[in-house]
């Protein structure tokens, strides 16, 4: 109990510090610290799948994304005085956040106890899906349409990022080039960590069918390892126009959609799997989906091509 209270206060303190930080860099470090502590809270709330996603995606990959954006913004001029938010705007934002937090704090204790839940139905029917992890069963079988929509949203976000590039940059390799020095510590780190990371990523993806894990968490680890390789100068970021890149990105949702539509023919409903082949179909969906998610996330963090000199 004291552990949980202490953890809560620690998280609140780090959050307050992150908001109060003056520099972008400091704020992003605070945000990553906050996210890693949140993962601890999720473990305490007995939600290890969410903890994995928070640690990998919510704080790790998003931290990389934010710091990349922050370093691009640093290069440009500091915004003119009219663009920094005034006191009125900051007060309005603070009031809105306080109202939302107060509303949540008021409502949550009033929720019915025990909370209405579909967990017993999930547990009762999970044998039909062939999976052992109820979270994966919900993601890939009961609510597979939500997962399909998630990956489409990710792809749309990537298209949005690409659409910000000027036309002249369309053929350049994505992301920024780091000076590659084969003897540097960074190259050493990358050469040691990346194989281990790929192994861990595949393990967490594979174990997701019977234990906490799954394709989003595994794909995030794979994406982080690719970005690490790109930062160390070990791989070249592809250009947007490369055909194989677009194929990798699209094949995940395409297979998902194809199997979903095949559900009409086989069982009469979209994304309904015939019971005898459910596990196999889920596996056939998950493997290209993991690759697609990894590629999308890696490209999102890499961002548009960075001009060498301005």
């Amino acid at each position, binding site marked *: 109990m004291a552990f949980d209270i202490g953890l809560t206060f620690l998280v609140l303190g780090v959050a307050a510090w992150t908001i109060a930080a003056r520099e972008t860099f400091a704020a992003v470090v605070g945000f990553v610290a906050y996210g890693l502590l949140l993962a601890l809270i999720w473990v305490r709330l007995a939600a290890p799948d969410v903890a994995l996603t928070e640690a990998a995606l919510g704080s790790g990959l998003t931290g990389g994304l934010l710091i990349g954006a922050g370093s691009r913004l640093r290069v440009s001029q500091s915004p003119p005085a009219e663009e920094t938010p005034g006191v009125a705007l900051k007060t309005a934002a603070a009031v809105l956040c306080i109202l939302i937090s107060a509303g949540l704090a008021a409502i949550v204790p009033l929720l019915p106890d025990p909370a209405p839940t579909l967990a017993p139905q999930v547990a009762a029917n999970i044998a039909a899906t062939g999976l052992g992890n109820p979270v994966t069963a919900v993601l890939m079988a009961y609510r597979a349409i939500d997962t399909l929509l998630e990956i489409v949203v990710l792809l749309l976000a990537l298209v949005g990022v690409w659409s910000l590039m000027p036309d002249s940059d369309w053929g350049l390799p994505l992301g920024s080039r780091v000076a590659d020095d084969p003897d540097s*510590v*960074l190259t*050493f*780190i990358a050469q*040691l960590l990346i194989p*281990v990371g790929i192994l*861990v990523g595949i393990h967490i993806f594979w174990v997701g069918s019977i234990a906490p894990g799954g394709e989003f968490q595994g794909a995030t680890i794979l994406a982080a390892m690719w970005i690490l390789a790109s930062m160390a100068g070990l791989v070249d970021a592809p250009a947007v126009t490369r055909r194989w890149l677009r194929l990798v990105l699209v094949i995940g949702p395409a297979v998902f959609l194809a199997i979903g539509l095949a559900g009409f023919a086989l069982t009469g409903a979209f994304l309904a799997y015939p019971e005898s082949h459910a596990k196999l179909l889920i596996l056939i969906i998950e493997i290209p989906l993991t690759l697609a998610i990894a590629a999308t996330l890696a490209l999102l963090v890499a961002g548009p091509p960075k001009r060498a000199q301005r």
Partner: protein
Amino acid sequence: MSLVLNVLSVLAVCAGGFFFLAGTVGLLRFPDPLCRLHALTKADNLGLGLVVLGLLFQAANPLAALKLVAVWLLALLAGATVAQLIAHLARPSGPRA
């Protein structure tokens, strides 16, 4: 037998906690970023190693024990190499002549 294992676990975890404490005291008291980095990397990783040692005695099967050791090795590898990177950032000119 299990009493011996429990005692060993408690001893190892306490030693690990002591090293975490030492690392944090170093973080709080050392004057220089490089010294603080030193305290963070060495003491905290040693503390983690001792904690893992203590948990090894409690492991349910050899596979779980192997996984604990794998986590420790990964943390050690990552910590040592990232510390080099951070040190280079803190003092790019290298060791003082």
